[in-house]
């Protein structure tokens, strides 16, 4: 009985770990006409804070993000940038109000985000790794495909 309990406990832990890692498997995707295939996390933060506005090929950086009031949207901002959706919007409101950068594009679903990135040169976004498909470029961050 004790051995059975032990095995069940281990199995439960493994299931929880797996679920946890699945929830946090995020990737950065971009339109092929824009971002390089790899960048640092510092550069990624700079992009999502409006501090980088042009790619090397001259295309405008277009930040795309799933709305923070969705489950995945809130997770992205918290895990990748350590900010709430409200803080993220405040940062961008200040930039837009000062005329320094255009506002990000907000989407209700990852599918909408993905379709926008596929059709918009210079666009970049973050989404769940299970939702990626052809037509977008996956960007390695600090050498890792999965954040």
């Amino acid at each position, binding site marked *: 009985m004790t051995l059975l309990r032990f095995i069940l406990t281990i199995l439960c832990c493994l299931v929880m770990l797996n679920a946890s890692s699945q929830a946090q498997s995020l990737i950065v995707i971009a339109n092929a006409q824009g971002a390089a295939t790899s960048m640092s996390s510092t550069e990624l933060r700079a992009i999502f804070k409006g501090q980088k506005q042009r790619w090397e090929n001259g295309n405008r950086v277009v930040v795309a993000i799933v709305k923070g009031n969705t489950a995945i949207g809130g997770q992205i901002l918290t895990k990748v940038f350590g900010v709430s959706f409200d803080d993220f919007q405040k940062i961008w409101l200040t930039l837009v*109000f000062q005329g320094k950068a255009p506002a990000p594009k907000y989407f209700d679903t990852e599918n909408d985000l993905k379709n926008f990135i596929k059709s918009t040169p210079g666009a970049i976004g973050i989404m769940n790794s299970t939702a990626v498909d052809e037509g977008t470029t996956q960007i390695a961050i600090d050498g890792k495909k999965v954040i």
Partner: protein
Amino acid sequence: MKVIYTFFLYGLLLLIVTASAIAQPDTQIRGFTDVQMGYSAKDKKFQTVLGQFTTFITSEITDRISFLSEVVFEYSGHDAGIDIERVLIKYNFDTQFNLVLGKHHTPIGYWNTAYHHGAVIQPTICRPRMFSFEDNGGVLPIHTIGLMATGESITPLNIGYSFLVGSGVGSTAPFDHDDDKSFTLEAHIEPLEGLRVGASSYLTKVAKGSATLRNDTLAQDMNQLMIGGTLLYLNRLNSPFEFISEFLSISNKYDTRTVNTTSLYLYAGYRIGNIIPYVRYDQLRYGAKDDLFYNAVDMTGLLVGVRYEISYLSVLKLEFQNEKFGDTDAANKVMFQFAVGF
């Protein structure tokens, strides 16, 4: 009649903008406004007033050309007036270099370009005395029409700059009244996230006969030079402490003498969740009571307040304000503001 005309104009503007928004999917329309309530111990009066109503329009016209406008509806007596505060056309070469043409908030210091007319964005109910608007007796040319080169995020020190050549003091939107132009240069570094050190200067010549802030005309030519410094720390994601300080020295040089005026403010706040208690000290000291350009009334102010950020578009502020103008007794006020964006 004036009110009817004003609202007709507003309705027409809204119609044009809505049509533009339909035609241009990258056009965004936002607005900001606030309501204030307060009690003045000096006047022994409790009152509720409307703040400015600001419409804010941005549009991505092409991949590199963008447009921004800020139109404010202000209340004066029984009438409402329209003030076109900013109209900007920007060409973006890169983050480090942009050319912007139009009516700007003059890039002197930090507050004037960071906080504009949206009360929901700025940390206190009112602007510091040195940044009062021109029609509120402010000492600075808050707006300038001209061409500006500006950039940010240069080198790991995050150097930023703005260089604006524009119309001189006393010019209006449709009429640049003389050949003398103004030159504004601002530069700053952000060596650490949230820490900014900056300097700015403004130079212009105001011709004899120009309108002054004393409600008369200038008796002599005046060369005006402003030099200011900024030190601030704003890093809401990593620190609860926030601090902004700015200093400005204004030199009005006439044929017979030079009058120096100084102004400063110090703001500090501490974030506890969504609640930020704060304090601000303001000071404006004119070099001479008979300066030919300024209506020289010294000012000292201290305010203590608390701000509650419901969301990034809705903020409540409550302040105790103590202000002293000239030789009059200091006056106490308690002010409350509900500021929103939409």
